[in-house]
């Protein structure tokens, strides 16, 4: 293929493709929201998008800047209270996929969005947990998408805001009524999945033009590569067109035009 695309577009398209049509998806703001809406506008028209603001089955024309933009309520099937959203819909087991971003992630897929450094004397104070801690445990499974960098991919997160598989990979073992947890991580370089035995994050697919060394250099631990390492399929022309239209509409609207 001779299509031109950025690594960010590659990431979004790959993340979008992970969402099957008909899935109910609890959508995090930012990259997950971009991917989930691209899925809805391409191969998954019946994907059900749910935002923690209470908007059930929403179909925004432009990407929301916040988790509760008016666009979300205006295009939703209905909007429920936030307590109901977390109690009946998330904890109530109605969510197939929780789609999250993060600031830090470690080899066992634990997520940190709380802080860098020590809790009482933080170097950088991050926004905090939000919906993620319970999305990660109450949704059927979890997809994670973020840009690949040594700052983000650390051996051990400074703080486990949100459970992947715990500091030893066994954090979900024997816990009743818990979801499967992270099943894939999509970055601008590759796709990773937890090893079925050890839960250690393993690269299963490299994006076109990316080398194993590129991934290793952007990862804060010695990362494993699957024996059957694949090359991620490229975006299609249609996907790129729809994504670019969506982002252009969004930029115009957010600029207040």
């Amino acid at each position, binding site marked *: 293929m001779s299509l031109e695309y950025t690594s960010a577009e590659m990431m979004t398209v790959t993340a979008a493709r992970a969402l099957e049509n008909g899935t109910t998806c609890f959508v995090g703001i930012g990259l997950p929201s971009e991917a989930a809406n691209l899925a809805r506008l391409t191969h998954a028209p019946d994907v059900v998008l749910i935002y923690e603001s*209470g908007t059930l089955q929403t179909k925004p024309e432009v990407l929301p800047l916040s988790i*509760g933009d008016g666009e979300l309520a205006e295009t939703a099937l209905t909007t429920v*209270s936030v307590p109901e959203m977390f109690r009946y819909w998330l*904890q109530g087991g109605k969510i197939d996929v929780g789609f999250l971003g993060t600031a830090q992630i470690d080899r066992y897929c*634990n997520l940190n969005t709380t802080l860098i450094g020590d809790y009482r004397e933080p170097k950088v104070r*991050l926004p*905090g947990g939000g919906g*993620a801690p319970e999305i990660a445990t109450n949704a059927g499974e979890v997809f994670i998408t973020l840009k690949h960098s040594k700052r983000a991919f650390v051996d051990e997160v400074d703080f*486990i805001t949100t459970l992947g598989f*715990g500091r030893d990979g066994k954090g979900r073992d024997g816990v009743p009524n818990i979801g499967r947890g992270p099943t894939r991580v999509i970055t601008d370089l590759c796709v990773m999945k937890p090893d079925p035995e050890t839960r250690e994050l393993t690269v299963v697919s490299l994006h076109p033009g990316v080398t194993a060394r590129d991934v290793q250099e952007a990862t804060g631990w010695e990362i494993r590569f699957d024996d059957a390492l694949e090359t991620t399929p490229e975006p299609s022309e249609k996907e790129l067109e729809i994504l670019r239209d969506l982002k252009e509409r969004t930029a115009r609207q957010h600029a207040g035009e």
Partner: protein
Amino acid sequence: MAEFLSLHDAVARYVQDGATVAMEGFTHLIPFAAGHEVIRQGKRDLTLIRMTPDLVYDQLIGAGCAKKVIFSWGGNPGVGSLHRLRDAVEKGWPHQVEILEHSHAAMACAFEAGAAVLPLAVLRGYVGSELPSVNDQIKFIDCPFTGERLAAVPSVRPDVSIVHAQKADRAGNVLVEGIVGVQKEAVLAAKQSIVTVEEIVDDLTALPDYHPNACVIPGWAIDAVAVAEKGSLPSYAHGYYPRNNRFYKEWDAIARDRDAFTRWLDENVHNAGGQS
């Protein structure tokens, strides 16, 4: 029983120094006008509760009103950090602010339990998270029927809650539409409450598009109603005006810098007079 007051008088009467205050509105209908009035009146030592502190608490914190913040997600949505919150937590400017943080699920349940006047909320939460290690208000109980370990958090019972809504009628009944968040819960959970509204109508139930299950807070469950037109800008009011996403982005630069923030506060809050 709701009394119609000016925003100035409502804040003067119901927001005391040292009080625990919840200003709610999940992204939508954030009570900015009321927050600015609290800043103008120089309230101090407030314990501020909000799921998403957002710009309104960034401003209150930067203005020196807050002693403690209880929250579950403290960012500028879609933009980045709340720099005034960070500056207070990381550097103690204008003074040290204590924080107590939860997850959204726990805070939502805590508001629900507060409205139900229960002392605790029970949820399947915090599994594997390290938040319980830094928040001593998160405990665990065993279900007496199944033995399952479940999280428990204290309910939210503010001294005063402040929310913004679309409409009140002459009896003080308040209509909230669109993203309703935890606003009803905040009002019902609080000892006293102020609701600011875009407009007063004669009778909510006589509105042509009135719905039998509309989210309405009766006037007798509210202490004060104050008109505050565009009272949630730069947040939005479903059916009235959109969110000013551009300002949310511009806030990043304003809030990053103490001087820029102070100038903004002087121009837009302290010297802006408010609606009295």
